[in-house]
């Protein structure tokens, strides 16, 4: 399991307006494209250089495809990254703070200690 790669997906999609829309419209296609094209791009490095070893597990792919924030939390994805991206994707369909409250409510069965988010 790679918390780092989950975080990298959330981070790169959240920071690109086109990718936010693409992930909203076509989550499965975006996850597939991202893993093929972006997962091994080293962000703080010259663009020609790539890593060779980063890939999702099937469970991680499914959680991202299904936009399942509860499972992402339980996998140890960084909660700030998940929250920020999911607000960008879903808040527009809800009234003020309605989405944020429902997001927390869906996790009310989770108690301390929370999953470790260290990468």
């Amino acid at each position: 399991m790679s918390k780092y790669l989950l975080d990298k997906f959330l981070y790169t999609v959240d920071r690109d307006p086109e990718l936010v829309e693409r992930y909203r419209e076509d989550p499965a296609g975006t996850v597939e494209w991202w893993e093929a094209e972006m997962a091994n791009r080293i962000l703080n490095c010259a663009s020609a250089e790539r890593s060779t070893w980063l890939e999702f597990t099937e469970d991680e792919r499914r959680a991202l495809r299904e936009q399942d924030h509860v499972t992402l939390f339980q996998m140890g994805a960084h909660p700030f990254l998940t929250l920020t991206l999911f607000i960008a994707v879903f808040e527009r369909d809800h009234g003020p703070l309605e989405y944020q409250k429902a997001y927390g409510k869906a996790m009310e069965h989770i108690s301390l200690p929370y999953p470790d988010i260290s990468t």
Partner: protein
Amino acid sequence: MAELAAVIASTHHPFYYRASTSTGADRPPFADEWVAKIERFRETLTRAEPDVLVMVGSDHFHQLWLDNMPQFLVGKAPFFDANFYNEEREFGLPRMTLRGEEDLAAHLLRDGLDRDFDLAFSNELRIDHSITCPIITLRPQADLPIVPVYTNIFAPPLPQPRRFVALGKAIREMVESWESDKRVAVIGTGHLSLELGGPRQFGEHGPDPEFDRRAVEWIASGDVEGCLAEVSLDSLHAPGNATHGFMDFMLMMGVAGEGAKADHVDTLDLFHTMEAYFTWYPNGVPGEVVPA
């Protein structure tokens, strides 16, 4: 030598800008009280007549990323552009450009390294709302040069709380040993109890009002040792999953000094999180005559 004109610690609430500028039906019911408290807080900086601002904050996965993550970083550049697309999108924050004070940044880096803080540096740093929120609240004209100091409260493994306090103490000594006639304010922002992306987020109050009460007491009374005795990297998970941002308040307690009572203390209980504002004047309240 430079003079430490004020030490200021604050929460950084990214919704303040939108709440304070909205009108009519869009204006939240708590906006007027919030603005009044911020204006009183702003006056505490204005009175200190600073020339330069050292701004302590934390990048929220904007420029700093997990493939190259510094624990403590000083920005040394002539300018700092500010705020990012996702902060514009979520909080309505404006784009800004602030001037940098490179001579003080160079001094903090050299002196900090010589004091065994292995500080990272950046010569091209785009700063985020942890620094622009206090600019908006405390110095909205954004006219003073800054030295950004970023801490990692966000991407574990994190430094220990005592290192935040120690760096705060060192920043004070380094500011006061800077060969300059400038007046420097050190401003740092963090959080009290806070939950982001977890089951306790966006409640009626912050996730742990009792922690907030104790935290305000530690800060206001300068109880550095009491705070260090109670707070650990593990303990900070309990009040809320983003409460490690409290370590930036601990850094500012280090700047203010053990036993230093704050000259200005204010709080505002909002949904989701409590706001808290503190100002210390290390060399006396400006304009106040000390009785003989």
